[in-house]
């Protein structure tokens, strides 16, 4: 800190003083490194959230969407339901990845008395096959609320880290369990203390926060344009991903699962912003899924058709809120065309 600006006298320490300080330094390191290991977070595992199943069941959805904020900024389920004249539900949760989507599929959708006919999974880049330890946010409460005691994908596969840094991080997470306390508010600008002090209730503060900070009120200036992310070849990732669990579980409940890879923001000249590594990944994913009669749509191709352009993007991945309906219409057209095509070929939608 101003710290403790050092005492000039310590510049010339005698050997005995140095030895004494060395012992004190070791003591300090032991305290700082070892003591925090003893702290455990007082986290009480939360129970499976049955209300998620009940809410989903109430929608009587024939078509369900899984994904994160990419999905949320693209598909309006109510509007889509009007356009294609069937019940539609979206289970989008911001920041999530395949691990959470699998839990939603296995423990919410599959629990419904009448499973939906189709499940659409929206993802970007290679998010669908990220390794099993990657679930998006480190939100343990979310995982627990979606985890049924006897149906869980976690623990089925060994969580192997990608890099040395990841491995070290995993070790540190284990050494310092207090760091893993579930903090759903870590990305939320609102502190519950501040809200309580001014006397706002939780619903009111959420509503106010949505009004000011919601997507609809974002400035057009994107702070950064994210670039496509690539984490390894398809072959290196599929074995440790949730993908096989997802399509197997969908088949078990009799729902068709469709994987939709959304396009990231194209270049300003309209060309797809996609490195060769991701193009190859997508081709491998297509081959893998189609060999199993699973439908796969790579929306990157639709950039060429002029349906979505760079100006519609808020940042590298998300669409501006005002283009949500446009995308929903665009997707509805595609769905209706597919249904018509299937019915001409006599295929079951």
């Amino acid at each position, binding site marked *: 800190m101003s710290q403790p600006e050092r005492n000039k006298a310590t510049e010339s320490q005698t050997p005995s003083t140095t030895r004494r300080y060395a012992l004190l330094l070791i003591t300090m390191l032991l305290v700082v490194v070892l003591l925090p290991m003893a702290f455990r977070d007082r986290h009480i595992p939360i129970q499976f959230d049955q209300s998620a199943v009940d809410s989903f069941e109430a929608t009587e959805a024939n078509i369900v969407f899984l994904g994160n904020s990419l999905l949320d900024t693209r598909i309006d389920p109510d509007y889509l339901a009007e356009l294609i004249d069937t019940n539609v539900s979206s289970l989008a949760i911001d920041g999530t990845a395949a691990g959470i989507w699998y839990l939603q599929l296995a423990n919410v959708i599959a629990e419904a008395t009448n499973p939906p006919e189709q499940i659409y999974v929206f993802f970007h880049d290679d998010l669908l096959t990220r390794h099993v330890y990657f679930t998006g946010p480190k939100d343990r409460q979310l995982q627990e609320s979606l985890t049924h005691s006897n149906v869980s994908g976690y623990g089925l596969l060994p969580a192997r880290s990608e890099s040395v840094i990841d491995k070290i991080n995993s070790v540190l997470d284990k050494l310092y369990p207090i760091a893993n306390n579930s903090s759903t508010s870590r990305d939320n600008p609102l*502190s519950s203390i501040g809200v309580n002090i001014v006397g706002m209730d939780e619903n009111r503060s959420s509503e106010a926060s949505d009004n000011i900070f919601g997507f609809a009120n974002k400035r057009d200036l994107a702070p950064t344009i994210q670039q496509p992310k690539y984490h390894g070849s398809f072959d290196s990732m599929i074995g440790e991903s949730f993908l096989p669990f997802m399509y197997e579980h969908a088949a078990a409940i009799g729902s068709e699962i469709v994987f939709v890879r959304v396009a990231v923001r194209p270049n300003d000249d309209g060309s797809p912003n996609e490195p060769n590594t991701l193009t190859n990944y997508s081709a491998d994913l297509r081959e893998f899924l189609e060999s199993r009669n699973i439908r796969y749509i790579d929306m990157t191709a639709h950039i060429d058709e002029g349906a979505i352009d760079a100006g519609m993007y808020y940042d590298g991945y998300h669409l501006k809120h005002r283009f949500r309906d446009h995308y929903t219409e665009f997707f509805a057209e595609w769905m209706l065309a597919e249904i018509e095509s299937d019915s001409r070929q006599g295929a079951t939608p």
Partner: protein
Amino acid sequence: MTFQSLEYALLLIAVFSMYWFLSRRYQNVLLLAASYVFYSYVDMRMALLLGGYTLVSYFAARRISEDPANSKRYVIGAAVVSLGTLAVFKYAGFFVESTSVALDSVGLASFDSTLKIILPIGISFYTFQSLGYVIDVYKSRADARTNLIDTALFISFFPQLVAGPIERASRLFPQLEQRRTFNPERTMSGLSLLSWGLFKKLVIADNIGLIVDNIFSANDPGSSMLWVGTLAFGIQILTDFSGYTDIARGSARLFGIELSLNFRHPWLASSPADFWRRWHITLSEWLRDYVYIPLGGNKKGNRRTAINLVMTFALGGLWHGAAWNFVVWGLLHAALILVWRAASTLNVRSHRIFSTTVTFFAISAIWLAFREGDISYIADNIVSTGLENQLASALGITALLYSLPIWLHALVDRRAFTDIWTRNDVSKTVAYTAITFTSFIAILILRAETSAEFIYFRF
């Protein structure tokens, strides 16, 4: 490589574990190698630029020393090359765009003003540091160094490379030119300073940054929210930058090197001029010594002093970023100092708490020009009535709660307290351990989910 990354921790541990077994020469070689690894971690080309600055400074300083008759020519040459490089990388796009807009506004031809030039991280800092060395040699305030490794390390020493403190030759070279011996007490103090800096960044700055980013990314935040965002930004930038400096100074201390103090509780400044004696001290001193005083300082009458002040602050603003809002920010600071000076001639006595409070809010308000470059956005929102005043209050209180540790720090940093904890080796160890341990635990529990880049990295 950023200070809050695991890669940096590994680099620090690796270098530290070898460093103390080496002779002075190899200590410097190791630090130099680590500095280039640190700097070129993302882009190898950056190292070439850094190497170029080193060679220019090294040879210019030597020529000045060896050929005094032509020393002026060499110092001007070094300044042109250093500042020219800075201008190309940092300001070319700005000037081209400004020219295009100006031509367009008077009906003359405009042109494509988009230049795609990467801004090398920290270029403003090491440009000033290396140029300061050459000027000091020219002014006989420092000797020209003949050892290229020492010179290269002076310019590239990784803890202070990308965001300062901007060191002077007379302070850093002597430390690099003597063998450092292991001093456990200094290591303890370095660790505690480093962890305190990390706490300021990961817990205070990043959490308050969430509030600030949300407010300034809203299309229509309204007046009250905008002011809360500005106040919060003042706290964020202080903890972000001073946190960086603490990590830099703590890291350097692990290698037996003492970097300059860059912050001295600036939020306790009792006047705008006092603020600049407490905020980013090494930049203020650089601008004072190499710009303000050569312009004449305050020796040529009130009018000339005011002009010098305005020019120095405009340059200081532009140093921060290639955009007009930074110039405006600098000019507002100059105006504030001039108004304060004029007011002080009225001999109105005020309590220190009053002047500190006024200074705090005046400086905080000026941060708005620094944070937001879109004047029309400020104009639109500054007069609009906020719809969510209660939410704005909640966010303001949240930001103030996060800032409590820095106020507490100012309190315990008083002489009466430091005398207690520096009394003997045990009391010092207890203090260092308490700071490090508390910071570490707080980081584990309270850190923001995502850590943003240090604000001053972009300068």
